[in-house]
């Protein structure tokens, strides 16, 4: 009954060989787009890798970019486990930043060891509440969460812009001149910069949020696989009818799952503000961490530890793309690669269950006949 270490590795390979294959193929196709711009893919990819991983300072920046992606990746993966599509991670992120800055101002006189947890919790709460809206709508009214969460993304953006322009503006709160950003967080509300703690990280802006993110992954793992709540959420995600039959409340678990998912995205925003930007800016569009989180979750097979690895990959892409731009290759290629990765992953899901389908797919026509049990 016990699995040997060898078969554990085999299982791991089995689980991750398709995401890895998808990534490889995506990079392959990406090189076509690079060639079309008259550039050399090897140069491009070298720039990508060197820009993100050569030197501790760069690694620091890569980890910085990875931090929010871990959170949003976990957020979306967690929701998926309950059978929910949380496309609203973007909006929950934004609301998270909103709550963080607001709490940071209201409680600005508290000492750092108290204030920082307070504002991070506030950010998480904001995201959680924003996600609870589609959660409740789905649980109580059966409204599909995809469109609602997307609409809330835009709503969150405009709402936050409104507050930045008005109540959170330095002009309102500090009698300052009107600015395009919110009031700035004081020193006591900021996460420590890693370079201050460990000078090896040079001039990177990496902050302690990365530890919180990694901790969140382990917490999520524990939650999903070791607690009754996790058992129930996974059951609802795999088979709501059987869950109902087993006395599990579908609606309660949907709301719980969305709330927790939202909290994670909210934390993404909270740590970003508290660790890097220290304020929020008015923006025509949101930063995109929520959307990248979808790719992160899918590549990580919706497993907390997979998400960690996957987030790192996308962090590398995010950091390296600037170097690529400098080398003359449009950074949008990275976006294309990300899109292709998801398309392959989406198509791959079926290959996992029907290994002989690949062969049959080559035969003409839709009459693929597959095993009956």
């Amino acid at each position, binding site marked *: 009954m016990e699995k040997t270490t060898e078969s554990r590795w085999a299982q791991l390979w089995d689980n991750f060989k398709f995401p890895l294959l998808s990534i490889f193929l995506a990079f392959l196709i990406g090189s076509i787009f690079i060639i079309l711009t008259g550039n050399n893919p090897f140069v491009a990819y070298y720039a990508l890798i060197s820009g993100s991983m050569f030197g501790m300072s760069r690694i620091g920046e890569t980890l910085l970019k990875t931090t929010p992606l871990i959170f949003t990746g976990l957020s979306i993966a967690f929701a998926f486990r309950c059978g929910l599509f949380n496309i609203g991670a973007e909006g929950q992120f934004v609301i998270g930043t909103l709550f963080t800055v607001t709490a940071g101002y209201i409680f600005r006189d508290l000492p750092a060891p108290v204030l920082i947890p307070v504002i991070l919790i506030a950010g998480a709460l904001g995201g959680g509440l924003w996600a609870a809206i589609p959660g409740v709508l789905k649980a109580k009214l059966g409204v599909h969460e995809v469109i609602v969460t997307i609409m809330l993304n835009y*709503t969150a953006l405009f709402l936050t812009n409104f507050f930045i322009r008005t109540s959170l503006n330095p002009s309102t709160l500090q009698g300052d001149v009107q600015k395009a950003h919110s009031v700035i967080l004081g020193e006591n509300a900021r996460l420590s910069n890693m370079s201050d703690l460990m000078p090896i990280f040079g001039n990177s802006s990496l902050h302690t949020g990365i530890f919180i993110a990694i901790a969140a992954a382990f917490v999520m793992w524990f939650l999903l696989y070791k607690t009754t709540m996790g058992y129930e959420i996974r059951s609802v995600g795999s088979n709501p009818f059987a869950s109902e039959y087993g006395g599990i409340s579908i609606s309660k678990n949907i709301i719980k799952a969305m709330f927790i998912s939202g909290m994670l995205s909210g934390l993404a925003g909270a740590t970003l503000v508290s660790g890097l930007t220290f304020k929020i800016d008015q923006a025509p569009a949101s930063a995109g961490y929520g959307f990248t989180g979808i790719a992160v979750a899918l590549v990580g097979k919706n497993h907390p530890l997979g998400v960690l690895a996957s987030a790192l990959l996308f962090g590398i892409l995010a950091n390296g793309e600037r170097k690529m731009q400098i080398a003359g290759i449009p950074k949008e290629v990275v976006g294309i690669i990300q899109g292709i990765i998801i398309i392959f992953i989406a198509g791959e899901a079926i290959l996992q269950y029907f290994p002989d389908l690949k062969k049959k797919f080559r035969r003409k026509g839709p009459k693929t006949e597959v095993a009956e049990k």
Partner: protein
Amino acid sequence: MMIIIMAILASTLRLATPLIFASIGGVFTERSGVVNIALEGIMIMGAFFAILTFRYVPNPWVAILVAMTMGMMTSLILGVLAIHLRANQVVAGVAINLLAGSLAAYLLEVIYGRSGQTDPIRGGLSRSPEALQFLNDIPVLGSFFSGLNPFVYLAFIVVGIAYFVLFKTPFGLRVRAVGEHPKAADTVGINVYKIRYICVLISGALAGLAGASLSIGAVNMFREGMTSGKGFIALAAMIFGKWHPIGALLACLFFGFAEAIEIQASTLGIGWIPSEFLRMLPYVATILVLVGAVGKAVAPKASGQPYDKAHH
């Protein structure tokens, strides 16, 4: 006063038009059992390629044709993923949206050498059609008609055709059968996959057309993010309209109206409402519509479920 009302009405129709095209596309795919979240991404492709084509071939109709073709090609990806590979349709749709956005950004950079938006073109299809100029001379209503571009008329034609095809032709009967009970259709010899592919391609063409109407039908350029969620609003309109072409039309008019109000806010004397709240209006309206539509709206039974010939 009248002028303002006419302007708003015209605005409503113009703003509803891209929604109508996309929404009717959605009706076809959903009726055949495929969820099409990718409408947004296809619209982006349509909008971009319309402008791009026009740059080299200054004929709006050619531009539209290319936009529709690119739309079909993009939707084909969704088709293969959803129909043949039996992927999760929502995930596939989201993937295409991301890819389309990135692709447009890439092409923008590579072809135009800058990011954000293309150069403006001259002579798109944003004015009222030549052949119908006489309508502009009608007292009172003239100002309404002069505010309509050719796409608006096309939209109504498309709705009419969609209604006829879906409810009055054998093909439409088969589409609806495939969406409700694909196995039943299969056992009478209907090719479920073929029907679904056709519907997906129809939606691709229509969503491409929707995108074109946004770019060469209005602002004469492509700007990143210009679709701003319209593809999803179109889906909501489809649900609100109970998957019926006429219903979808009415729902799109409603959403177009919401947006028109937002744009004309100051003229309407409601300029004191913060602009952010007005901009939120269509999105919040969509949520309210979905909430209200629940219970009354019944999707085609097989919607979202991949069809597997061997498994019952």
